[in-house]
């Protein structure tokens, strides 16, 4: 990445409002509903943080999506990817990026600093599931309690499906999540949880159901070594969120682009690649169940 936002954000934070104002002025003067890409691309790009809530390693797809967004927004777009959710969250909270596709868990934690922009629709619903998967070669593992004193793979400590929900499920069964497994580790991506379980490195793991299903479609050999033994209740799908400080107009523009994506021919094609039906606006309460689980786990334990 040529323009590392982490480096130049300190300067970018101050002149932000002025630049947006200029842009608005320009749009009025030319009388267009959206600015010309050529002009806006000289401006600082729109920075969108991505996390492994989807298969963020498909570089070709990301290029097409970025170009589509640039066309729709009339502005240069930069995708920002980091090794963990936390780094992306920090970039967002410190305004070094404008938007991010985050998990519901960090969203509920920093709800007052962030704004919900749009929620993806998967299989017609704005929800997804956490899958508890096990090594297929160990058929005696049939439920969560069978995994006691085993090695377990989490995806990311800031993931709902890959960390929060399994912790909650263990706690629900009356166990201490910190001591239930013999050993746990983070793979920092759902896809790698699947790989770790399939390779036998971990006896079980928790993954984003959407990622598992998508991999089952495009790389069936990856999920073949795993077996889903439990599905969670539906949770709010990882949403696109915005930093609270970004101008309303920018947020609206971005939201409009996402919401109209399914109606656009190229956008619909991109959505098909993501195995999503489109985007929708959702009420904040969609994520209350995640917030409740987080609160439950933070209770002092004996």
């Amino acid at each position, binding site marked *: 990445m040529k323009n590392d936002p982490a480096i130049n954000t300190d300067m970018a934070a101050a002149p932000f409002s002025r630049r947006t104002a200029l842009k608005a002025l320009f749009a009025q003067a030319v009388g267009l509903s959206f600015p010309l890409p050529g002009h806006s691309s000289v401006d600082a790009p729109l920075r969108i943080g991505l996390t492994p809530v989807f298969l963020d390693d498909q570089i070709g797809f990301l290029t097409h999506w970025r170009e589509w967004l640039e066309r729709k927004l009339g502005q240069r777009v930069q995708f920002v990817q980091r090794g963990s959710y936390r780094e992306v969250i920090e970039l967002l909270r410190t305004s070094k990026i404008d938007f991010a596709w985050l998990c519901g868990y960090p969203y509920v934690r920093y709800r007052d600093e962030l704004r919900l922009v749009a929620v993806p629709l998967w299989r017609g619903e704005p929800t997804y599931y956490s899958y508890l998967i096990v090594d297929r*070669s160990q058929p005696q593992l049939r439920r969560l309690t069978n995994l006691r004193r085993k*090695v377990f793979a989490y995806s990311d400590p800031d993931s709902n499906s890959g960390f929060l929900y399994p912790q909650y499920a263990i706690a629900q069964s009356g166990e201490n999540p910190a001591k239930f497994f*013999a050993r746990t580790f983070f793979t920092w991506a759902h896809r*790698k949880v699947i790989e*770790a379980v399939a*390779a036998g*490195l*971990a006896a079980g793991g928790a993954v984003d159901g959407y990622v598992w299903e998508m991999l089952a479609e495009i790389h069936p050999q990856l999920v073949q070594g795993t077996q889903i033994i439990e599905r969670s209740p539906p949770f709010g799908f990882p949403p696109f969120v915005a930093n609270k400080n970004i101008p309303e107009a920018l947020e609206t523009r971005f939201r409009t682009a996402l919401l109209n994506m399914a109606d656009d021919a190229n956008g619909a094609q991109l959505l098909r690649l993501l195995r999503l039906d489109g985007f929708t606006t959702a009420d904040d309460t969609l994520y209350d169940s995640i917030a409740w689980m987080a609160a439950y786990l933070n209770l002092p334990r004996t």
Partner: protein
Amino acid sequence: MKPLTNLSLRWKIPLRVMFAVLGTAFLITTALLVKDYEEMRANLERNARSLGSLLANTLISPVLHDDVWRAFEILRSVRIEEVPAMSDAASPLLLVIDKERRIFVANEPRRYPLGALVDELRGDVGQMAKQVKWEGNAQQQSITVPESNTLFVISPLVTDGEALGHVVLGYATTAILPHYRELVLRAFWITCLAMLFILPVSWIWARRTAEPLLALASAMRHVPDRLTEAEQAALPESGDEIGQLSAAFRRMIAELKLKQELEEQMVVSERLAAIGRLTAGIAHEINNPLGGMLTAVKTWQKHGEHDPIAAQTVSLLERGLTQIRNTVAALLVETKLQDRSLEPADLEDIYLLVEGEVHARHVTLQIDSNLSAPLPLPATPIRQILLNLILNAIAASPPNGIIAVAVQCTESRHLLLSVCNDGDPIPENQMAYLFEPFATQRKEGHGLGLWVVYQLVKQLNGGLSVESHSGRTCFLVEIPYALPD
């Protein structure tokens, strides 16, 4: 063993050469393959050590941060291509072991689960764990577990002087075997290919080495019965030992032949001498009473009564006795030493003497002589010799044949006489008895001509020989003479 010893050199030499060639090829190939195996083995360990230290450096951070997944990804990224000489099927075992000697991560997590104590593991890893010096050793260690043929290279994970654990690489050394087998197979085929060229060449070369010996051996089989065939055999002509052997063999054959001829001649001349002595004895015994009888006949004719019937009977007796005397005289050849010398004119006389016979038989007689002055040799026996030989030649000659007579005196004071005719050769079985009295096969003649010639030549201390080939039969006489003082 016996049949092998008795095997012909025709096979023995090529087979030995083949054996030597194959043995050499086998030994060289084996030596090269053993060397290759050692090298492969050494390569394997060198590779394991360098890969081990590379992994140890790379794994410090994941181990320090307890990042199992990253460590696993690093182990998983060790591709088999980084380990030359290994078959694709056998990847090395990679283990990361923490300070407590528990497995931090392994590239075969099912066999080596996370958190397991290495000392408690069964199999080669457990055996290896017992031999490793875990404490205070910042050096790489190599340990071979012979039961499973596994080579372990243990590299310490050290950061800032603090030991974090160890990286263990386990190579099944049998894994180089498929690769090695490929190498052996290739060497085998290359050797076979080379043999395909070398063997026929060496076979031909070996056969050529054996050939002169075989030729010599087959020539030797003709000795001593068929010397002429042995002499005519194609023997190797070369300067080497076989060539020398052939030359020696030829000399031996020549000497054997000479000896055989001499023996034959000796037998002939001894027999002739015996016959000579016998005939001389008989002739003497006959001559004494014969002389008396002839004298008695003469006396009766001179002084007896002339009864016609008795006179007729006595005359018959006289003729018979005279014939006996002549025959005995012919058998008992005696040279008178007091005789006149041989002169050129004697040869002309001989021509005149046989002229009638020459004409009658329609043959041509050529007399070639270098005799220009009288020779100190008695004329009568020489004339008798020539006459007998020429008459024999005329008899043997076909009509219109040519009889060539040569008379020569040599510087070594020998008189050489040769009488040749172009009639049929003398049969082999007659040669030995040729000069014996009454040995003739002809109808006419009494068979004493050659006997007389032989006796005369012997008495003159000369030599006599016959050469009879198809179309030419020659009698050669050689008589020495001494110049008068």
